[in-house]
């Protein structure tokens, strides 16, 4: 697959302190690339360099096979940026906002208005085209923020924490929009410190900390780095006293069993596919399962395992 973004040995320092510390990364076209990390990890600095807003100290970055140092303006035509903070004009209508930003990418005349209207329709703001953003809710402003970035149909869309501070319904709408944009052909770089979002939509994930990429891969690959087991947590109705845990241990794939309070924690080899046999054991012994939960390692766990800190510290 073609590499839409190539980053080689990228370095950026502020007052001698590296914000981006010699990272190298390629992004395949058609991916939704998640850039995950705590505040100050270097995510925003990296994407600011890709978009040409700040210069790099060392390294090479190319987008669509064009070096951003030599062909900055050409590169920018292929990129749409959804900034972390809402960046719209309160005194322009929604349609005027989208048309203005799209015009900076070379659109004009009828195609400009048409694409702007399509962008508003895509983000669910078609009936608010002639309204001023000062009348919008936070979620609607976020959607307008996205519409302003996609009207010119960029090959690469960079979304910097696009769901900060909005309600769950708007958040879900945005996440679904991201998937749809990807299906329509755009490559997405999605930065966030919410691992749930990254887990849900990203096909490829890079975890950053202190300016470095500390882990890279799909969600399964990353969680597999620290553990190849899942934990099954079962709460039987009758309590745990009547359960012969040794017999559960004999089921293929079960690695370990712990009991705590009224719950049984079964550590299971991932992909053992023995859930039916475990449930069958309880049923055949007349034990009613009050609650059953499968806990898999998440990216938070991965980050904690690698750095010793939580993502949201």
């Amino acid at each position, binding site marked *: 697959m073609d590499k839409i973004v190539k980053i080689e040995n990228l370095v950026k320092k502020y007052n001698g302190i590296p914000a981006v510390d010699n990272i190298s990364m390629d992004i395949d076209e058609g991916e939704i690339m998640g850039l995950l990390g705590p505040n100050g990890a270097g995510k925003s600095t990296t994407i*600011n360099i890709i*978009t*040409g*807003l*700040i*210069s790099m100290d060392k390294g090479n970055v190319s987008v669509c096979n064009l070096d951003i140092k030599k062909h900055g*303006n*050409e590169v*920018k*035509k292929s*990129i749409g*940026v959804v*900034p972390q*903070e*809402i*960046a*719209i*004009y*309160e*005194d*322009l209508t929604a349609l*005027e906002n989208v048309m*203005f*930003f799209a*015009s*900076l*990418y*070379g659109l*004009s005349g009828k195609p400009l208005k048409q694409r702007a209207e399509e962008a508003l329709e895509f983000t669910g703001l078609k009936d608010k085209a002639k309204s001023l953003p000062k009348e919008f809710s936070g979620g609607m402003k976020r959607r307008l923020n996205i519409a*302003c970035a996609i009207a010119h149909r960029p090959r690469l869309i960079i979304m910097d924490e696009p769901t900060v501070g909005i309600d769950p319904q708007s958040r879900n709408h945005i996440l679904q929009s991201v998937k749809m944009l990807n299906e329509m052909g755009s490559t997405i770089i999605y930065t966030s410190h919410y691992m749930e979002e990254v887990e849900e939509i990203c096909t490829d994930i890079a975890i950053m900390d202190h300016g470095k990429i500390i882990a890279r891969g799909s969600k399964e690959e990353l969680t597999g780095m620290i553990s190849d087991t899942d934990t099954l947590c079962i709460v039987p109705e009758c309590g745990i006293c009547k359960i012969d845990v040794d017999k559960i241990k004999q089921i293929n794939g079960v690695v370990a069993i712990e009991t705590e309070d009224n719950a049984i924690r079964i550590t299971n080899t991932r992909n053992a596919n023995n859930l039916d046999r475990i449930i069958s054991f309880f049923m055949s012994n007349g034990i009613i399962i009050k609650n059953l939960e499968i806990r898999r390692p998440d990216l938070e766990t991965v980050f904690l395992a690698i750095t010793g800190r939580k993502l949201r510290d």
Partner: protein
Amino acid sequence: MKNILSLIKKELIINVRDKKGNIMMILFPLVLMFILGSALSSMFSKPMHLDNVKILYYADQNSQIAKAFEQFIKQSEKMGMVFTQSNNIEDAKEEIKRLGYTCLIEIETQEGQNTGTIKLYKNNRYKFTANLVQMMINAFAQRYNAVNTIMRNNPQAAAEIINPPAENEEMPSYVEAVTVNRGRQPSSMDYYAVTMLTMIIMYGSITGNWSIKSEKTLKTGNRILAAPVRKYELITAKAISGIFITLIQALIVIMASKYVYGAWWGENMGAVLAIIISQIIMAISMGTSFAFMFKSEAASSGIINAAIPVIVFLGGGYVPLESFGGFLSDISYISPVKWINQSIFRIIYSNDYSLVAATIIINLSVSIILAAAASFMTKRNHNFM
């Protein structure tokens, strides 16, 4: 070019919809004109007294320019001015101070030439009337230069102009041109129409400042620069739209002052507008340059808001400082508004264009210097985020 036009269009839409800003820039000066023009009308209602204005002069009586100056003296004496001739320039320089003359006029001529130099020595005690005499001398000099040109081309025609008429003959009408038009003197409304306009144009620098700072506040600046837009396109669009909007506001203020308050703007609006436009360019340059020089919006707008009242006061925006004379009148020349107001008043009331070029050059030079300073101080990575 397309980007610049898109950016200008966006700026114009936002500015037109900015009700508060437009009220401030249009209504505020009109209200102040009314208040100051009404409250301080007594300062301007006194007729211009030139009685007993004593002037000492020294001239080579054989020169053509001295003959022309004789006619100027005759006209000025009709207004009550008293002219005394001195035969020795060094003595005359002593006498101006000792004997209380308003000023000394020295006319130097080159041998065999019709041209000469007019030197004016002003007595600081009579600054206001001395300035008036200076305006009259400037008008005379302009007229004399025109006559001199006619003489080179058609000496016969010029001879009729410079030879004084006989006792019983009427003074030819061309002589009227060298005197101050006493039929029109600035009323308080006329005065404040000009000074409140030039004041509010200085406040246009806030428009320029906010235009840049707002892109940082709204976080839209980086969004624009992430698009294929060059920094110079953004700044050019900001400057052009700021100048255009401020010019429209200024024209509205002029029209309102002229047709609602009846303020007099003279007979050469073109020259007045040339000065106004140069002032607008300076004001917008000041605002945009400060926006780049100072990181915080509070600092840049604070400096502008502190500086403008001082600049306007020194420019005679609130009261004519010539009335006070002395130190205040002298330091007023550091204010560009002083030059602007003075050159506009000279155009309107004396058809005197001697300060126009200098004023425009000063305004544009200040603009260039500020823009260069801002460019030098701005760091390479100007990140609006």
